[in-house]
């Protein structure tokens, strides 16, 4: 690894990276879209940007390696140079020094116009041209790279479908006839239209209301699941970064990389005060968003069904060793919590006994959702259900707490190992430099 990434601060591969690291542009045979280019690697090497008349560089010697198909988030305070760094990837801002490589190809000196046609670009205000219809906006890049008319038309429909807009309804509309969220979707469709391996997004959801933003984030996750592009995404919202990123780059002033790691690692082991300050309070709570119910132990719980004879229910209550039973309805969906004595008080009537189940979770729910449900349901546990709402097990407070502790411990361990690897890598580099053999020339 060190040979391929001299000077790189982030050459190691965290265990939790989600996507394959195929370095070249290959078509995805399993992809649902007929023509889809999957991601390409992006390597930034010693990138520096100096503006004339200012003593300090705006971006100072940044090296970064982004794997193919990975979603990497640049996050940091305003004015930290994250947008500058992003714009240097498609050379909207020309670096003063350093190299940029996409899919292994050095693009630092190629025609920037050609480069940008291969790199999708979506920005905050959607950047749609108001004098063109939705279809014309989306068709821009395919037209410029010379696709035949029929293919462009089909592609426009496909892209609109992909971002969840009905082509027949939206094709002929002008941007001002769309809501903010819809404009943003079209912006993403335009960025993806010519099927670029890399997508750069500059605070694309910054200007929409929180509910729409949440929705757009979910859509982006779904899209990325289908497309496997390499996405570089700039935001100042750390929660957005956690939600979307495979890895997160926390940038401090002058684009210095404070930490480049998985969301888990940054949450559990921020390298310094700057990062922990940025992560903000409640890192452990945020960590709960990253784990799903299926990752923790779902335990079995004594259950009875509404059709069971009362005697069976009494027997179960006596044998169960717990104070409570979960009563399921005829379709095996959680219905009521039955406590000892409930039946007596209700004079044997199941319809009146017990407390209704307020909330259930599926295995796809986050631990945060599960905790929420456990806290609101006075049973101290939450029922886990399958696809059709049928009972599958329960998660209780204890399991939840144990799992979280285990997770945090594992994260810490991983982070320490990671730290160790980085130090070794640095030592190796220093050694190489001192020997005057800095690896293969770039």
């Amino acid at each position, binding site marked *: 690894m060190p040979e391929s990434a001299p000077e790189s601060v982030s050459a190691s591969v965290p265990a939790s990276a989600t996507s394959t690291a195929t370095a070249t542009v290959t078509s995805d045979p399993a992809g649902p879209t007929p023509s889809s280019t999957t991601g390409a690697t992006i390597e930034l090497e010693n990138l520096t940007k100096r503006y004339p008349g200012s003593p300090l560089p705006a971006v100072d010697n940044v090296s970064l390696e982004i794997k193919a198909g990975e979603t990497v988030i640049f996050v940091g305070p305003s004015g930290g140079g994250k947008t500058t760094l992003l714009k240097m990837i*498609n050379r*909207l801002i020309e670096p003063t020094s350093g190299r940029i490589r996409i899919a292994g190809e050095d693009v630092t000196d190629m025609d920037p116009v050609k480069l*940008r046609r291969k790199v999708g*670009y979506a920005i*905050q*205000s959607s*950047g749609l041209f108001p004098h063109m219809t939705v279809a014309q906006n989306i068709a*821009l890049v395919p037209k*410029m790279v010379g696709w035949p008319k029929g293919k462009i038309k089909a592609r426009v429909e496909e892209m609109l479908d992909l971002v969840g807009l009905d082509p027949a309804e939206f094709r002929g509309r*002008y941007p001002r006839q769309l809501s903010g969220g819809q404009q943003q979707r079209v912006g993403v469709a335009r960025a993806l239209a010519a099927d670029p391996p890399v997508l750069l997004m500059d605070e694309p959801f910054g200007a929409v209301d929180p509910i729409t933003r949440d929705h757009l984030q979910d859509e982006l996750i779904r899209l990325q699941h289908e497309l496997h592009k390499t996405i570089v995404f700039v935001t100042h919202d750390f929660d957005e970064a956690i939600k979307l990123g495979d890895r997160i780059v926390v940038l401090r002033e002058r684009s210095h990389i404070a930490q480049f790691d998985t969301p888990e690692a940054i949450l559990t082991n921020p390298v310094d005060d700057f990062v922990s300050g940025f992560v903000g309070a409640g890192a452990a709570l945020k960590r709960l968003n990253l784990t799903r119910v299926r990752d923790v132990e779902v335990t079995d719980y004594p259950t009875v069904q509404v059709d069971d004879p009362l005697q069976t229910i009494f027997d179960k209550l006596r044998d169960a060793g717990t104070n409570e039973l979960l009563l399921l309805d005829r379709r095996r969906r959680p219905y009521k919590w039955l406590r000892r004595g409930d039946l007596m008080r209700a004079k044997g009537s199941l319809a009146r006994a017990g407390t209704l189940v307020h909330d259930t979770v599926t295995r796809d729910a986050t631990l945060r959702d599960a905790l929420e449900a456990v806290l609101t349901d006075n049973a101290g546990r939450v029922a886990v259900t399958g696809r059709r709402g049928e009972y599958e097990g329960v998660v209780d407070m204890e399991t939840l707490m144990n799992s979280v502790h285990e997770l945090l411990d594992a994260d810490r361990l991983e982070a320490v190992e990671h730290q160790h690897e980085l130090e070794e890598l640095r030592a190796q580099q220093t050694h190489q430099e001192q020997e005057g053999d800095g690896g293969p020339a770039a």
Partner: protein
Amino acid sequence: MNFWDYISNRHQQLLADAYQHASAVFQCMVVATLIGVLIGVLTYRSEWAGNLATLTTSSILTIPSLAMIGLLIPIVGLGVPPTVISLTLYGLLPIVRNAIVGLRGVDPSLIDAARGIGMSRAARLTKVELPLAWPPILTGIRVSTQMLMGIAAIAAYASGPGLGNEIFRGIASLGSKNALNQVLAGTLGIIILALLFDAAYVLIGRLTIPRGIRA
């Protein structure tokens, strides 16, 4: 002879003058638009060049039209040349100024988007900046045309074409029985032409400004 008799007697002459007037203004407007937009495109990026262009064209406008035509006669002679040159020069200011304002007024984030998706400099100008700046440019053209309608009347002083001839003839023969009719016919003709042109511009605006940015 009352005014209506005068019109019906001379309608052929009046129509010919009106046609020449309209044609002169139209042709000068085409030339002024091309030059004006070109100046705008060349200068809007630079603060001082844009200001210089606006300043120059506005100082041209302050030269009295009679003086301008008078000064041109010794250089280019009588007739059509001084008319065309002076009308074109006068027509520049509103177009240049509106072109610069329009091009500078394009939302920077759209320029950023255009660059970001890989549009070349020329494509950016022709596909994004000029279409978005077109409504103010068209307004400039309208203002210019109204102005030139009046100024074109002065061209008759240099034996130029147009309805100005009627007015000048009338003024020269003040006291004669047709003097007032001639001045009136020339003036009204110019007003009618101006209104017709304006209507045409409204139509052009409808046809050329995309629905997405129409006010």
